C-alpha cells in the first residue's frame, strides 16, 4: 500500500484505482442496465422505434458506467491533461462518423437494402 504511487494524491481522486464500493456500484448498475433492455425486448413491451431508443440509451449509459466505475477514466497524474479522455473522444468521433456515415450512404444506395 505505502509504495503504491497513486495514493499520494488524496485530494484529486479519493481512490485512484477505485474501491470495492465503486466496483460493486458499477457492477450493480451494469446488471440493472442490462436487464432493462432484455425485459423490454423479450416481452415485446414497446413498438420498434421506442425499443431501439431504450436499447441504445441503456447501452450508452452502461458504457459510461464501465468507463467511470471500472476503467477509471477520470484518473490522472497530477496536473497533466487528461490525454486518455481526449483520445477516447477522438476515437468515438471517428466511430460516429464511420457508423452514421455508412448508414446514411447505404440507405440511399439501393444496394445496401
Amino acid at each position, binding site marked *: *500500500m505505502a*509504495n*503504491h*504511487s*497513486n495514493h*499520494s*494524491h488524496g*485530494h484529486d481522486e479519493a481512490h485512484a*484505482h*477505485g*474501491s*470495492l464500493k465503486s*466496483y460493486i456500484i*458499477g*457492477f450493480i448498475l*451494469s*446488471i440493472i442496465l*442490462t436487464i432493462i*433492455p*432484455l425485459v423490454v*425486448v*423479450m416481452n*415485446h413491451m414497446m413498438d*420498434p422505434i421506442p*425499443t*431501439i431508443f431504450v*436499447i*441504445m440509451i*441503456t*447501452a450508452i449509459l*452502461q*458504457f459510461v458506467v*464501465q*468507463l467511470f466505475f*471500472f*476503467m477509471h477514466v477520470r484518473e490522472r*497524474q*497530477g*496536473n*497533466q491533461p487528461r*490525454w*486518455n479522455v481526449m*483520445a*477516447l473522444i*477522438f*476515437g*468515438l468521433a*471517428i*466511430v460516429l462518423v*464511420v*457508423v452514421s*456515415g*455508412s*448508414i446514411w450512404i*447505404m440507405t440511399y444506395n439501393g444496394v*445496401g*437494402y
Partner: protein
Amino acid sequence: MAQAVSQNDHGHHDHGHHDPQELKMLGFWIFLITDVILFGTLFATYVVLHHNTAGGPSGADIFEMPGVIAETFILLTSSFTSGLAVLAMNKGKVKQLIGWLVVTWILGAAFIYLEVDEFAKLIHEGHGFSGSAFLSSFFTLVGTHGLHVSMGLGWMLLLIIQLSRRGINDVTRGKINVISLYWHFLDAVWIFLLSVVYLMGVM
C-alpha cells in the same frame, strides 16, 4: 522508488518527466482507442448488411437468446472479478490476486465455450460464414470480439504463471493494470454487440 518520490511533491510536476508505467497505460489506452475504431468499422458493416440475408435466415431466426444472455452475465461478472483482482493487488495480496484472476479466466473460458458452441450450431445447420452478407458480417463482428477474448485468456494465463513465480512487483503490477483495462474494454464492446446484434436482431 523514483516514481513515488516524484509524485509526492504536490503541484510541482516537471512536464518533461513521465512515469514510465503511466506512459505504458496511456499507450495501451491509445491501442484500445484504435480497437474501438476497428470495432466501429465492423459495426458499420454489420448494420449496413444485416438486411441482406440472400434468402437465408435473419437474426430473429437464428439467435438463441438464453445462451446470449448467459454469455452477457458471464462476461459482465468476469469484468467485475478482474477489477477485484486489481483491488487485491493494490493491497499486496498475491494469493487473492491470482485467485480472482483464475475466476476471471474461468468465466472468460465459459464465455468462449458458449460462443464457439453457438457458432458450431449455426455452421452445422448450414448457416455458415458464406451463407449471406448478413452471416458474413455477423461472424466477422462477433468473431473478432471472441478472438479478442481468446487472446486475453492466453495472455492472462501467462500472467498468472508469472505472478505465481515472481509475485507482485513493479513489472507485474503494470501488466495486471493493463490486462484489467483490456478486460473491461472487452465487456464494454460486448454491451454493444448484445444491443446492436442480438437485441435489435430479435426484437
